[in-house]
């Protein structure tokens, strides 16, 4: 395994981060803020470490699977370290643990925060915070793949590690085209939402930041009260629409826009996802209304936003939910576990796995009735091979085990059960808000530092889909 090749690609990752740090620096300079120097200096450090390997390492002809795995996993870790620098240099509420947590939460598009007062942050740092989500949403590696002239094998090996096998089911193109499709859809949606939010009353700066966070399904807001601060039905509707779109497979969105046969209207997974979301919204609305919490329209308004926000992994909030009936909280917890579709910017378990799991359940029931029968699991006419079926089941078991272990570790630090459970599941699912001490308008600052490190690991496991990190640890030699 050529370590120098891995280091060179990590250098590209740092250079990409440096670009966004520099843009954030320009914002700080424009608004004459004290975060200008921290952002500029962070950018300089990233440039130095990014450029340095390029002096030594020649152009790469091929990258094997192991090298690809290291590039993807270490790329995420290195980018999170680099992302901490502006926070550490600025200070304020950012201790080392807090800066690491916020950086990981940004890049993994979780959206959990340690900040008590988001609005006291300089605009440059707010933009950097949102940028970490935007970069992390599509995966910084994909940006690198688009920009760099890679050999075909290099591109395939890196791509195969970055994109889960489930996501590839709805892509009908070659690797290079897939990367282009993802980026085009991603950037276009961001621009469109920014324009719409600006037109409907959000300032341009806030619109850009919230668009970054919506399309990345991240949830970092520039306001302490998240979207509730705007108290605008129009803004909430726009964000709901874009959250739903961002939770759907990007390949299907591209196919729909380009009038291809395989689009969101023909996809059974998409229809199932939207149906489940709709049922969730309906159940929560009915419960809120009949429990006397709000009138009908407010019940629908708050239920729709909260369920869709969590169901698409975004994590924005328009109301504080801990005082809601336990029935509604459990529904929201279900969506925190389920997450959005594969091939979107969502992390976590992914709806496709849940859908496949239920198909496997049906298959098992059929096998019980007809033990000698041969049943093939199909999704939209395509057979699912046994390897993918096994992977799905193992992943779900690993997922549940991971969040249970993390919850256990948190409770050992004397954190109450609801907070520990919801913090664990929300970080693993890359959703953001939970219940208890980490509710929609709350933060993670009161979690002990060791707990924050474990939750950060959870976020990375969720974003990297657990297997990549485990595979990295199992590579015998470097």
């Amino acid at each position: 395994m050529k370590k120098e090749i891995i280091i060179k690609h990590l250098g590209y990752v740092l250079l990409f981060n440096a670009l966004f740090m520099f843009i954030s620096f320009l914002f700080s300079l424009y608004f004459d803020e004290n975060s200008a120097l921290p952002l500029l200096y962070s950018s300089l450090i990233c440039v130095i470490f990014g450029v340095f390997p390029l002096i030594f390492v020649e152009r790469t002809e091929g990258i094997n699977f192991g090298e690809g795995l290291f590039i993807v996993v270490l790329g995420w870790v290195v980018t999170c370290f680099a992302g901490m620098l502006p926070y550490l240099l600025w200070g304020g509420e950012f201790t080392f643990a807090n800066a690491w947590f916020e950086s990981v939460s940004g890049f993994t598009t979780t959206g959990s925060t340690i900040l008590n007062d988001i609005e006291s942050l300089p605009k440059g740092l707010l933009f950097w915070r949102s940028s970490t989500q935007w970069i992390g949403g599509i995966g910084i590696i994909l940006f690198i793949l688009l920009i760099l002239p890679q050999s075909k094998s290099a591109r395939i090996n890196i791509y195969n590690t970055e994109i889960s096998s489930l996501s590839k089911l709805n892509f009908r193109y070659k690797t290079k085209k897939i990367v282009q499709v993802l980026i085009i859809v991603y950037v276009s949606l961001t621009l469109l939402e920014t324009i719409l939010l600006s037109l409907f009353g959000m300032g341009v700066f806030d619109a850009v930041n919230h668009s970054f966070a919506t399309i990345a399904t991240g949830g970092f807001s520039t306001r302490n009260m998240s979207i509730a601060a705007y108290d605008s039905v129009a803004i909430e509707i726009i964000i709901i629409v874009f959250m739903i779109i961002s939770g759907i497979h990007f390949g299907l969105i591209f196919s729909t826009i380009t009038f291809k046969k395989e689009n969101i209207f023909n996809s059974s997974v998409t229809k199932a996802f939207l149906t489940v979301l709709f049922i969730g919204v309906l159940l929560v609305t009915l419960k809120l209304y009949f429990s006397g919490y709000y009138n009908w329209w407010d019940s629908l308004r708050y239920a729709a936003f909260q369920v869709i926000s969590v169901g698409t992994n975004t994590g924005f909030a328009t109301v504080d939910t801990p005082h809601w009936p336990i029935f509604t909280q459990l529904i929201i917890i279900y969506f925190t576990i389920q997450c959005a579709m594969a091939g979107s910017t969502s992390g976590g378990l992914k709806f496709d796995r849940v859908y496949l799991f239920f198909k496997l359940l049906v298959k098992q029931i059929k096998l019980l009735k007809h033990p000698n029968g041969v049943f093939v699991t199909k999704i939209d006419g395509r057979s699912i091979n046994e390897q993918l079926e096994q992977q799905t089941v193992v992943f779900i078991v690993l997922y549940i085990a991971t969040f249970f272990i993390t919850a256990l570790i948190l409770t050992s630090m004397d954190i109450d059960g609801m907070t520990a459970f919801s913090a664990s599941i929300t970080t693993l699912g890359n959703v953001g808000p939970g219940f208890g001490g980490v509710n929609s308008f709350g933060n993670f600052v009161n979690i002990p530092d060791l707990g924050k490190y474990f939750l950060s690991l959870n976020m990375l496991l969720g974003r990297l889909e657990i297997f990549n990190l485990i595979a990295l640890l199992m590579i015998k030699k470097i």
Partner: protein
Amino acid sequence: MLLIIMLVASIIVSLFEFQKLNRNVYGLIDDNYKIIEASKAMINALEQADSATLLLVINQEKERRNILISSDSSFLAGFEIAKNIVTKPTDKKLIEQIEIAYKSYQNKWQEHEIDIDKQANIEWYRNDIHLSFINTKNAVTDLMSIQQTSLYNEASSLKAKSYRAIMPGIITLISAVFFIVLLIFFIFKYFVSPLKNLTNVVRNYHPQDKYLRSNLKSNDELKKLESAINDLLDRLKFNKNN
């Protein structure tokens, strides 16, 4: 070169933040702290004047006069210091209020020197002159409270600024360590290891081998060295044969 750039940048950033820190410290000491001390002096002087007024009520005229003269000069000294330092409009307004309140208080105990009906008149003390004392004292206390709040805010801001002055240095130190590790890795990979490889190949060279085969893949000076050694071997063999 890159390491030097990083170190120089860190020094510049730290120096800039330390300068800002320095300015803030001067502001803290020169402005806020001095006004607080002056306000304390004024309050002491007022307390003295109030005690002196009580002495009049119990017919201690001579002692009262001495204390009043002393307290008046103390108050005015403190007032002058505060008046010369304040720059903010809100603080200037408070200074004006103090001046008006004190003049009114001063008139009352100066009037009294002539008006002997006020002697032993506790009601007059309680309903007139003491109220004037309270008003003046409250005005001075307001000024002091504002300065104390400002002092606390400035100190908190200093804490943040000193952090920002120190952090670039710490980050640079850590980055420099990583940089040196990387540098050592690349030097070993691209210089030391190929050299060692070439040295071993030369050492293990057997006359029956045609050429040195060091498996160097790079196209740099080390590969040229390998070629030069092979050329030398060719020439030596040619000379030997001839």
